[in-house]
């Protein structure tokens, strides 16, 4: 919407040390994960050897459906427990820490399927986001004198944020009355009420119309301007290219590539895994689970198709006779 959003912004650079490869070290990592693995029965959903998320930048986590992005999100935020691995946020281990404590440390997430609290008003949704509220404890909540002043301060901050997200006119409405895109905005604004240091957005653009997309993009860039670190999952390549400073690509639970948006999107492994240059090729070849190069796979596939066609022809000839 604003003109500066149309003009490409300066990206944060110099985030990594050494070569940009999967698991490469960052100059100033805020989140570090080591050997995080999660299996569901026989299926390995996430198997991340090492990854570091750079501080103060916008990092995109991309990959095909089923790559394990959301599962990885759940593991990092305590909503799911990995089978193995360790991960730390700002140098403190998060392994075995429950979800609400993770949020209190400043790592706040949103959900792929928006979780607006429908039968609470938009303002109540916002106020719920604030942490350390005295009135949220059972016995102190009975004495309004203890929490009223704090509650009013929170309400003011909520109104400011709502104005920034252009939801201020909706403050008194039930969150259930908002449109899908507005709910995404509300969820993001609500997460900001807790004054996080790392915001993790799970598909912030899913189901949002193009007009709202631009304002969402501005908001995400705004988070970075305010010194927050952003990690988001997204399928919209245009958006990733537009706002991400760093891109991490996952496929079949593994991290297959890392780097700045331009170089990652030129990486053949990414094109294979995600953008679909070799649609016929088994993803396992790209991630190294199955031997063979993509070219060999493609040839094998072509051969298989040719043989099938020949077999069909033979059957037809038999029938004609």
């Amino acid at each position, binding site marked *: 919407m604003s003109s500066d959003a149309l003009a490409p912004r300066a990206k944060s650079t110099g985030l990594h040390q050494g070569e940009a490869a999967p698991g490469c070290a960052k100059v100033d990592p805020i989140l570090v994960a080591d050997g995080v693995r999660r299996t569901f029965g026989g299926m390995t959903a996430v198997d991340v050897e090492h990854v570091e998320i750079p501080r103060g930048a916008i990092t995109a986590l991309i990959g095909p459906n089923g790559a394990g992005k959301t599962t990885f999100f759940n593991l990092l*935020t305590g909503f799911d427990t990995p089978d193995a691995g360790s991960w730390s946020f700002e140098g403190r281990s998060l392994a075995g820490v429950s979800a*609400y404590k993770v949020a209190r440390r400043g790592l*706040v997430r*949103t959900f792929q399927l928006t979780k607006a*609290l429908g039968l*609470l008003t938009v303002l109540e949704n916002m106020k719920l986001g604030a942490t350390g509220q005295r009135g949220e404890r059972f016995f102190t909540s*009975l004495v309004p004198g203890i929490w009223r002043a704090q509650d009013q301060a929170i309400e003011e901050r909520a109104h400011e944020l709502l104005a920034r997200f252009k939801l201020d006119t909706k403050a008194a409405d039930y969150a259930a009355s908002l449109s899908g895109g507005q709910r995404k905005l509300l969820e993001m604004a609500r997460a900001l009420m*807790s004054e996080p240091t790392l915001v993790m957005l799970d598909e912030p653009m899913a189901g949002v119309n193009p007009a709202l997309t631009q304002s969402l993009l501005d908001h995400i860039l705004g988070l970075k301007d305010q010194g927050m670190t952003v990690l988001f999952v997204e399928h919209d390549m245009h958006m990733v290219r537009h706002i991400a400073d760093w891109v991490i690509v996952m496929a079949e639970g593994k991290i297959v590539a890392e780097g700045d948006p331009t170089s990652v999107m030129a990486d053949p492994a990414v094109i294979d895994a995600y953008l679909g240059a070799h649609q016929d090729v088994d993803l396992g070849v790209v991630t190294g689970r199955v031997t063979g190069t993509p070219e060999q796979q493609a040839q094998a596939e072509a051969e298989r198709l040719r043989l099938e066609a020949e077999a069909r022809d033979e059957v037809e000839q038999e029938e004609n006779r």
Partner: protein
Amino acid sequence: MDWSSILNQSASSIISTTTIAYALAAVGLGVHFGQAGLLNMGVAGFMAVGAYGYAISILTFGFPWWLAALTALFASVVFALILGIPTLRLRGDYLAIVTIAAAEVLRLLLLTVAFDDVTGSADGLFGFSGSFDESNPLPEGDYGFGPWQFNETTLWPVIVGAVLLTLSVLLVWALMRSPWGRVLRGIREDEDAVRALGKNVFAYKMQALVLGGVIIAAGGIVYTLGSNASPGVYVTSLTFFVYTIVLLGGAATIFGPVLGSIIFWVLQYFLSNLMPALVDAGVLPFMTANQAGMVRFILVGVGLMLLVVFMPQGIMGNKKEMTFVK
């Protein structure tokens, strides 16, 4: 038909220990179901803990009535913790299964002859109102007006019950307008979202389960004040009566459960007097007076279904809420 007697009987039920006891149970269930979204199907169990906790404390331990009441409330806290610790981490439906089972287990324990000397098994417990009657400050005489007629012994439990109900409603009101209540309503809507905002969802659900459980148990105490405790009362249908009351008044409201209880009991008395009278008057030739008296229970079931389908927000509930029901 004697309309004045029927209407008189119905009106008298507006102020009675039964109505107050059910109102207390409904206020407690309102905290569970309406505010926190906890599907507690063991209302009868919580009431039984209150009633028997009170009666046993007096008969077996010789406590004065007020200490017995406190003991019963403490027992309901323990009951809530036992139910909550294993189930509140799971999805909501599991709480429903565990609470309905626990209430049945409790009822059967009260019914078994193995503990006859403590629980009185099928006969229940009676003759424990001495200490309560002694505490009665009311001078002897008749009180009340119109259909509401009491003497000093029947009015005293009503006063105690009304005080307990008022305190409970005030407590719930104070909690629900506070940020604590806001978190609870948030959990009702989506507990993962609230967890992601740094709230200890399990602790809140446990607090709500204990709070509501204590209020329901208070209902059980009021129900037995100055009368008796019988295992036949604390059956699963009691749970559904309380659900009907809560849904009638408005589950997510503070005063709705009280209003619901009054309407429920006025209707119950009205129907239980009207139906046999109709049979006697020859309007319903196909059933006996006894059968007609039972028809009201069928009507409660039908009423509950109609409520859930057509007016799930209840009488005092915000109609706007229903625009967005998923």
